[in-house]
């Protein structure tokens, strides 16, 4: 990040308003470029975005694993067999 040049508060508001959309790649290219440029000159907003990105990574990587019960696949196959031939 570059040295902050104290962007206008309104510019910061606009950037943080789009924080999640930006991190989720749900903004259009022009918006993405604008926010990226803002983050390069605003250390505070950059810190907020970095923390949010960090939190998303934690959620993604630490989501509880769900072990598939050993017999579940067999139970599903048995249920499907009970259903008989598929009507298609």
């Amino acid at each position, binding site marked *: 990040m570059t040295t902050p040049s104290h962007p206008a508060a309104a510019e910061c508001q606009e950037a943080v308003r789009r*924080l999640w959309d930006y991190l989720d790649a749900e903004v259009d290219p022009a918006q993405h470029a604008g926010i990226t440029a803002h983050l390069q000159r605003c250390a505070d907003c950059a810190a907020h975005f970095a923390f949010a990105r960090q*939190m998303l990574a934690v959620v993604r990587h630490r989501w509880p694993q769900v072990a598939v019960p050993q017999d579940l696949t067999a139970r*599903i196959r048995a249920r*499907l067999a009970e259903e008989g031939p598929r009507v298609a």
Partner: protein
Amino acid sequence: MAVAGAGCTDVPRDAVFEAAALACLPELLRFARALTHDDDAAADLVQETYVRAYHGYATFLPGADMRRWLFTICHHAWVRLVHRERRVILTPEGESAELETLAAVHDHADSRRSGGEISLDTLDLGPAIDRALATLTPDARSVVLLVDVEGLSYEHAAEVLEVPVGTVRSRLFRARRLLQAQLLSFARDAGLVGDRPLPTNDPRTP
């Protein structure tokens, strides 16, 4: 699955269904677990999902996303199940996704002011995530799972959950704010704060 009596053309298609659908079992079970928050109920819901998918396979377009299709069926089955058993599942919806975003940033700014930078990289947050997820509603857990873990776009998550994209955004952002608040609290309790207090009059704080 039994295909006795089925036409020859059904046999390979059923085999394809079984191979493709069962390959999604781990992700589908995780989604069902997010909805039900119960292992046995999740396993039952998954079985029901496969039965419905089996009968509806004719509606599945070749080349479409099997995992997303199964998520949609699973969610639909869960909604019907919960409506039947409890009659009420509606929770208040926050209409302003942007307000949720601003609130999340504000919370983080407050934490920085009071304790300096907080890093989530330096501690095992697994237990904290478990506890935080347990406090979310099924709707909130499922949208976080779909977008943050499974990587679905807002639009695709909306299709799975059968809600407007705006509802996905508001649910997702609110859930993230709640998760963030709990992780910040956990990090503070664990002493995960830097030794560089920030200015208390940061003009750029929203």
